[in-house]
C-alpha cells in the first residue's frame, strides 16, 4: 500500500473505497466460512445415552 489515493467505487449514492470493500468482503467470507466449515471435535464423548425419543418434542 502506498500514500497514493485509493480507488473508489460508486453506485448511485453509495460510495466505498477499494480497501474498505476488501475488508468488508473478507469479513463476509470469514462469517460464511465460520458457519459452514465443520469444526473439528474430540472423540471424548462417552457413548450411550439412548432413549432420546422421550426427550424430543
Amino acid at each position: 500500500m502506498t500514500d497514493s489515493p485509493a480507488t473508489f467505487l460508486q453506485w448511485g449514492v453509495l460510495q466505498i473505497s477499494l480497501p474498505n470493500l476488501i475488508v468488508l468482503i473478507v469479513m463476509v467470507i470469514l462469517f460464511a466460512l465460520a458457519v459452514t466449515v465443520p469444526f473439528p471435535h474430540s472423540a471424548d464423548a462417552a457413548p450411550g445415552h439412548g432413549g432420546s425419543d422421550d426427550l424430543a418434542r
Partner: protein
Amino acid sequence: MTSHASPAGPSDGGSWTVSLRDRLTRTVPKGQLLPDRQPAYVKSWIYVFGVACLAALIYVVVSGLVLSIGGAAWWHESSVGHFVNSTHLWSVELFFMFMVVHLWGKFFMAAWRGRRALTWITGAVCFIGSIGAAFTGYLSQTNFDSQWISTQAKDGLNSVGIGGTFNVLNTGQMLLWHVMLLPLLVGVLVVLHVILVRRHGVVPPFDAIPPGGTGDVAGSAPVAATAVGTGNGSAAPTNVGQHDDVPVLEPSMLGRSS
C-alpha cells in the same frame, strides 16, 4: 475462620467481607471460571471470533504501550516507531473485523436468550466504546488525518452541546482519553462481558432440550453441578467441569432439525 462460601441468605454476623466473598463466588458457578469442558453444541468456527477479538485487543494494548514509551511523535521520526504504529493500526482493524463477525454470530444465535441480556448489552456498549477509543486514536496521530478528523468531528459534538467538554481540537486531552480513559472503559466492559459469558455459559440452540427435561432458567440462578440454585426441579447436570462419562448430545436434543 471457615472458608466455605454460604451460597444464599444473610452473611455471618453482618460481615461485609463474607457478603462480598459470597457475592463474588456466586458470580460464576463453581468450576466455570475456566472450565475444561463446554456444552457439546459448541461446535462451530463462529465461536472462535470472541477469543480472536480478545487476542487482537491484547495486541492493540501491547502495541499502544510500546507507542506510549516512545511518545506521541515517535512514530513520525522513527522507522521502528512507524512499524509499531502499523501493528497498532492493523491489530485495531483485526479487532473490529473479529468483533463484528462475533456480533453477527451472536445476533443470529439470539445469544441474549436465557438471561443473557446483560452479556449482549455489555458487548454492544463495548462496541460503541471501542469506536470512541479508535476515534480518539485517530485524533492522536498528530498528522493531516488528525487535523481533518478533529475539525470535522467537532461539528457533530458541538451540535449536541458536548463539544466544550469533549474538545476534539485539544490534542492533549484527546491523547489522554485515548491512552487512559477509554481503554479503561473498554477493558472493564470486556472483563464484565467475559465473566457474564462464564456465568451463564454458551447459549443453547433454539428449542434445545437437555437430558431430563427443559430445566428452563426463567426465574432461576445459573445452575452448576455443585452450586445450589433456586431451580425448578430440573435435573442436575452430570458432567459440568468433570471428566466423567458424558452423555452424548443427541440430535433430538437440538429441537428443530435443520
